[in-house]
């Protein structure tokens, strides 16, 4: 290995035997368990009427960007023979939106699709975090509002039950809530982005400083500072005292009908990083592990960008993280 091939840590960045950081080989014992989890999730999706689809790992980068400005974080690019830029997909939601608008251009909604597929994302830190991951997920197209969201959340909970988890919960919030509050209080547009960034990192100290700098009336100030700390059961939706919680209330009632009310945590500060979400957002937790197992939300404008205007929502689970949570639950007994 010549000097120029060395990475900063002093180890060879490439050698004849290395694999890129964030990727991994899976050997039979682990593979059997991952396969079992994936199969059970897939069976659950199929039974609920979500047909499995597969799309190319490589897409035209322009097409992914049409779905989301930053192509949802698709950062591994290559070129084809004609010089077109191809990118490894970073999720399955954008490709499925493309499939719906092109291959199901005239089909009567609702449409239900599931997938068990790999996706790739660059990592900021490069240590430990995977760049390649296996997602099991579902997309419900053409069912607006709480009805569609309740179906997706309920199936995700059931799929994790079948995969062997016992204590998982789903956090539910409204990704548009904070922004619409800021607008309704007359906060200038240019102040929104830094505040939403603080919110998405839950830098509540920074956010409080930004809110104080706006010089709002006390009630408005307290709401903007307090809202990201409101999380819990149904009672949270009454304590919020804001307009715009009707959707979450309806979602709660529908999930209660399905017997899942106690599996859901309402979290009024929840926002997801991806830019295509337009309303409710979801995150999946298990008390045995400190990371989220997956997430999703409502994306009513995404499919329209590919040419067919349909409301939709979906949720994806990281199969390897589900496996880690399952092992951690077992260890706790």
């Amino acid at each position, binding site marked *: 290995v010549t000097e120029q091939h060395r990475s900063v840590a002093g180890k060879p960045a490439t050698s004849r035997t290395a694999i890129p950081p964030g990727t991994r080989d899976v050997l039979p014992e682990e593979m059997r368990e991952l396969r079992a989890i994936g199969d059970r999730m897939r069976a659950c999706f199929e039974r609920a009427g979500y047909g499995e689809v597969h799309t190319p790992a490589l897409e035209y980068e322009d097409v992914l960007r049409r779905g989301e400005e930053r192509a949802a974080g698709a950062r591994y690019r290559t070129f084809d023979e004609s010089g077109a830029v191809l990118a490894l997909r970073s999720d399955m939601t954008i490709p499925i939106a493309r499939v719906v608008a092109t291959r199901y251009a005239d089909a009567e909604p609702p449409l239900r699709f599931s997938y068990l597929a790999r996706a790739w994302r660059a990592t900021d830190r490069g240590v430990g975090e995977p760049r390649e991951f296996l997602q099991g997920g579902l997309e419900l197209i053409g069912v607006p509002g709480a009805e569609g969201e309740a179906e997706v959340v309920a199936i995700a909970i059931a799929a994790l039950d079948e995969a062997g988890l016992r204590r998982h919960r789903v956090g539910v919030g409204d990704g548009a809530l904070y922004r619409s509050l800021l607008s309704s209080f007359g906060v200038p547009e240019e102040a929104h982005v830094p505040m939403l960034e603080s919110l998405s990192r839950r*830098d509540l100290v*920074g956010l409080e400083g930004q809110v104080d700098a706006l010089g709002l009336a006390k009630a408005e100030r307290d709401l903007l500072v307090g809202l990201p*700390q409101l*999380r819990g059961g149904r009672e949270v939706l009454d304590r919020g005292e804001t307009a715009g919680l009707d959707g979450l209330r309806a979602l709660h009632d529908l999930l209660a009908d399905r017997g899942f009310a106690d599996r859901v*945590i309402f*979290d009024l500060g929840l926002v997801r990083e991806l830019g295509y979400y337009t309303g409710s957002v979801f995150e999946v937790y*298990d008390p045995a592990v*400190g990371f*989220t197992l997956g997430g999703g939300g409502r994306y009513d404008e995404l499919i329209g960008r590919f040419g067919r205007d349909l409301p939709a929502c979906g949720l994806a689970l990281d199969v390897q993280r589900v496996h880690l949570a399952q092992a951690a639950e077992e260890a706790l007994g």
Partner: protein
Amino acid sequence: MSDPLTIAVPRGALFGGTLDLLDGLGIDTTEVRSNDRKLLFADVGIVTMRPSDVPTYVEHGSADIGITGKDVLLEQSSRKVYELLDLGYGRCEMVVAAPDRGDPIADALRRLGRVRIATKYPRVAAEHFAETGRQAEIVEVKGSVELAPLTGLVDGIVDLTASGKTLAENNLRVMEQIATSTARLIANPVAHKLKAEQIDSILERLRA
């Protein structure tokens, strides 16, 4: 759900203030104070570690909440932890400092087009110089940063100072303020939801 919280406590400059704070919450810190070799105090849910490790344990969920300096959080800004509260103590400044003769940083930039900066905070330093439109070569050191400009390794340093005494004793002068750091309460994102009641009860008492 009513499992007790595990709290990551920083040893070092924030240790005393943090233990006083925990005493105020009714957590018995007697054993933590009396035993500086032991790291894990399971009875009271305390794990002790160096401040820069606190975000690591909290991000992973090995600790539900933790206390560390804003300086550490700035340097490790990609960690997925929630910053819940400014605890106010442990106040110090993140500064650019240089030998107290003229302006070595401006001189280096004018004559050489770049400045060399030693620091334990390479990310904060790089961002500060990039944001202010100056080219900087960042030299990461582990020990006493003040030594680096005295030996000619660098033109200036980015470091934390409380009283400015160490800087003055080494003939260094504060040139620029970057940020003010105080102790912060941070939480694991999943614990923040699943142990909301315990965390909120601590927050309420800390705010009171």
